[in-house]
């Protein structure tokens, strides 16, 4: 069975390394946007989390939420990171250099949400064409979704 990591102990360890900002909730660890890359590198090297399962985003009225799921296949342990970033100019350090699997998923989030991933080797639109104005998966997207012909 996939066991989840003990988030409180992880939060304490990360606090020693990188300082304040890590709050552990029941099923995920909240990480400040600027420390994501360092925390992920720490967890990858120290605790052998070699599998980047998934990253996805959700658009809330006041914030963007990014959910990272990192796994260690050898010990069958799961860690879920949650990153809150502002809606003005959302930017999160990219994990594509740590795990190759993150590159396409981050490009897709950039394409559909407009969240910048700084340090991504090839950050451009993946599914839409360049002249497509706006980011469709945001709640305030005025596309043709609700029958309004654009």
């Amino acid at each position, binding site marked *: 069975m996939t066991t989840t990591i003990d988030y409180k102990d992880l939060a304490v360890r990360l606090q020693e390394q990188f300082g304040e900002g890590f709050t552990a909730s029941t099923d995920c660890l909240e990480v400040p946007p600027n420390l994501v890359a360092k925390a992920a590198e720490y967890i990858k090297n120290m605790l052998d989390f070699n599998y980047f399962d998934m990253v996805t985003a959700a658009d809330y009225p006041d914030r963007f939420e990014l959910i990272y799921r990192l796994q260690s296949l050898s010990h069958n342990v799961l860690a879920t990171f949650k990153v809150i970033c502002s809606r003005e100019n959302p930017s999160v350090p990219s994990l594509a250099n740590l795990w190759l699997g993150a590159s396409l998923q981050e490009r897709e989030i950039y394409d559909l949400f407009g969240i910048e991933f700084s340090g991504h080797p090839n950050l451009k639109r993946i599914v*839409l064409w*360049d*002249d497509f104005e706006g980011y469709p998966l945001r709640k305030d997207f005025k596309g*043709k*979704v609700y*029958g309004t012909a*654009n």
Partner: protein
Amino acid sequence: MEIDRILSAEIESRESAGIEALRAASQHPIPDPDGWLDEQIKRNMLFTTVDAALNWARKTSLWPVTAFTACCTFEFIGASSARFDIARFGMEVLRASPRQADLLVCAGTLTWKMAPQIKRLYDQMAEPKWVIAMGACAISGGIFCDSYSVVPGYNRIVPVDVYIPGCPPRPETLLAGIETLRHKIEKESISKPR
């Protein structure tokens, strides 16, 4: 390869400009080529043996080029496989090149990014050519018609001869659609415009 990076960016922007232009240009469906319908009503169709021979040849050897986009692809493959064999009607040669094909089967959802490719494919086909719009997505965008990136129906891009409903249509429905197209080809004549 640096030159590739610049080159592919330039190709990318030229293509997306093409998509936007096509999207603006095709807000209204192209009328279906049903000239043969009123001909029949007027009953003045002059049928020569040359027409009959040509129509028989074109009817029995319809070579499809398939715009394999989405789920209807696998119903078309199911129709051309061992159980519902399309090859019995002489449609077996799956020519990958549009030059030699004369039937464009549009199977699946058409998105705006794919529309210029389908337009170019249709223009490349040699002249006596017909189009089958297969599946609800091909007729009117189907379950995805409200989406921001789906073309509501192939008839915005290419003139469609036969519409086959269903999501995805069963192979028997596809064969019935091909049968209607064959009846349509029987009634065509070289002297009349399509």
